[in-house]
């Protein structure tokens, strides 16, 4: 089988088929004397354009750099965390205790931090997702162009507000406003664990409930902006096809815009979730500290990974207690990584459909 293939190039198809290596071998047989000049010139020029090579080098270089950087951060966290983990007197993953003050007897576990982080971020996502969807649909499908532009601009502006401002606003403005609502929820829906009386004073408003709503406002612009972008790209022919079939505005949205933009919307939400999981300063300000552990109520206080670490700065002078916090940071790092990977796989799944 392979013999005829080897013989073929000298027969005349050389320029197309033979790469540089083959071209060096073929000039030996005399019959195709007029062809070699071509074979020698052709393979060289198209492959080694300097611009392409520089660009390829640059792109590969930056790709490798990013991966190496992320790897280095992971390794750094790991190296710092391992000695402290060895000194931990309780199970790191399943303990709710956190005391690192006495470095001779460190007892720290991340279960509570993990739960508070995930519950507050998930609560934020549940609030933000439908609102962002509504806003994105309104801006792309219903709002007149003249209105859509400034409106979108205002939403984007929300993303530019510093987290510290959100934190102060949450503590001093939103918290007090939410207190009566929280009290009402506790008294009427208190039998559901999520709405049970929490482990911090509701009068101060430093609850996961307040924190989640502030987080929702913070991630709203991210989800809205990405979804708006995706919905705007719904192919015109599909929209026209639906209209010509007699679809109403909402039916056009349902049959073309939503199926087309669904994956983009979900991955936008995952981006928002990643942001909510890592949010630090706003939650450090809002969440009330508590001595008791998380009881699955939105009216609990506590700390997330990020806020716990931020509050512990005074302890960082001892590498052993600092290592405990770095270990917690490592878990957060992995958590956001997983969320991003999920978002990415959703986006990849969407490509197949196009």
């Amino acid at each position: 089988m392979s013999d005829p293939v080897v013989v073929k190039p000298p027969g005349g198809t050389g320029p197309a088929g033979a790469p540089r290596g083959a071209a060096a071998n073929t000039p030996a047989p005399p019959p195709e004397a007029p062809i070699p000049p071509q074979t020698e010139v052709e393979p060289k020029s198209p492959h080694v354009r300097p611009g392409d090579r520089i660009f390829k080098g640059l792109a590969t270089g930056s790709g490798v750099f990013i991966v190496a950087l992320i790897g280095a951060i992971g390794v750094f966290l790991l190296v710092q965390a391992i000695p402290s983990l060895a000194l931990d007197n309780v199970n790191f993953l399943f303990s709710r205790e956190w005391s690192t003050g006495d470095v001779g007897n460190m007892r720290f576990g991340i279960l509570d931090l993990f739960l508070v982080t995930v519950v507050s971020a998930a609560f934020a996502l549940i609030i933000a997702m439908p609102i962002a969807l509504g806003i994105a649909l309104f801006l792309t499908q219903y709002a007149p162009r003249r209105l859509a532009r400034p409106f979108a601009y205002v939403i984007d502006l929300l993303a530019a507000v510093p987290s510290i401002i959100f934190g102060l606003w949450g503590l001093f403005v939103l918290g007090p406003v939410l207190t009566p609502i929280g009290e009402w929820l506790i008294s009427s829906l208190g039998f559901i664990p999520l709405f049970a009386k929490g482990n911090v004073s509701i009068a101060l408003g430093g609850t996961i409930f307040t924190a989640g709503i502030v987080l929702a406002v913070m991630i709203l612009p991210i989800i809205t902006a990405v979804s708006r972008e995706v919905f705007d790209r719904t192919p015109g022919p599909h929209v026209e096809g639906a209209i010509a079939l007699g679809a109403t505005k909402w039916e056009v949205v349902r049959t073309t815009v939503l199926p087309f933009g669904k994956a983009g919307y979900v991955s936008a939400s995952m981006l928002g979730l990643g942001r909510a999981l890592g949010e630090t300063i706003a939650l450090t300000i809002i969440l009330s500290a508590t001595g008791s552990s998380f009881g699955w109520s939105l009216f609990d206080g506590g700390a997330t990974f990020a806020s716990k670490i931020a509050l512990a700065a005074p302890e960082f002078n001892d590498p052993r207690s600092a290592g405990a916090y770095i270990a917690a940071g490592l878990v957060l790092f992995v958590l956001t990584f997983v969320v991003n990977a999920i978002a990415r796989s959703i986006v990849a799944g969407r490509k197949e459909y196009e």
Partner: protein
Amino acid sequence: MAKRIDVKDLNLFYGKFHAVQQVSLSVPPRNVTAFIGPSGCGKSTVLRSLNRMHEVAPGARVEGTVQLDGEDIYASTVDPVQVRRTIGMVFQRPNPFPTMSIRDNVVAGLKLAGVKNKKQLDEVAERSLRGANLWNEVKDRMDRPGGGLSGGQQQRLCIARAIAVQPDVLLMDEPCSALDPISTLAIEDLITELKKDYTIVIVTHNMQQAARVSDQTAFFNLLGVGQPGQLIEVDDTEKIFSNPTQKATEDYISGRFG
């Protein structure tokens, strides 16, 4: 089912731009009318005004009347969505819904109209696909995405989608321009078939196609750049192609245009 179309003193605008001027013509039921003419003369614009798709473009405006069996589709009491449900449209580029299966594509219009009965939907899907000469090619993969078909198959899928709702009129805007000669012939045969049940208006740049499939031909022209397009003449296809009244028509179909 098939209905008669009467267009009277139709003027079409895109914002300030007067795109088409003073068109009047009639299309009898169970008849194929071809729109021919140079690019930009307003064929698509007129076609899209027949199912109220014209007004979907921002700033677009319509003057004059379009009657379907004597009823003005532009009357203030008429819902454009309802009009589009009774007039099918096939576009130049096949546009099946990519996220829907072949079956769902065909019955999309019925689902919009509120039909939920699965058995009925399956029957309609089969009947429409047979009507569009596509059934044998797709019957084993009804649940695969519609975007996975070839261009010609996609166009026939779009035709199946348009006839699934049993419309009164079928509008086609250069339905074969993206297709190979064999798919083109298949669709021309299909048009001749569909003529038994539907009133058809087709835009085409292909003179032979107009001559082959249509009973009546309307020639549109542009008097100059920036001027509105006009209907030069409309007559039996045989007459237009053998002995047109207007010199411009004769020049255009004999290729002496411009």
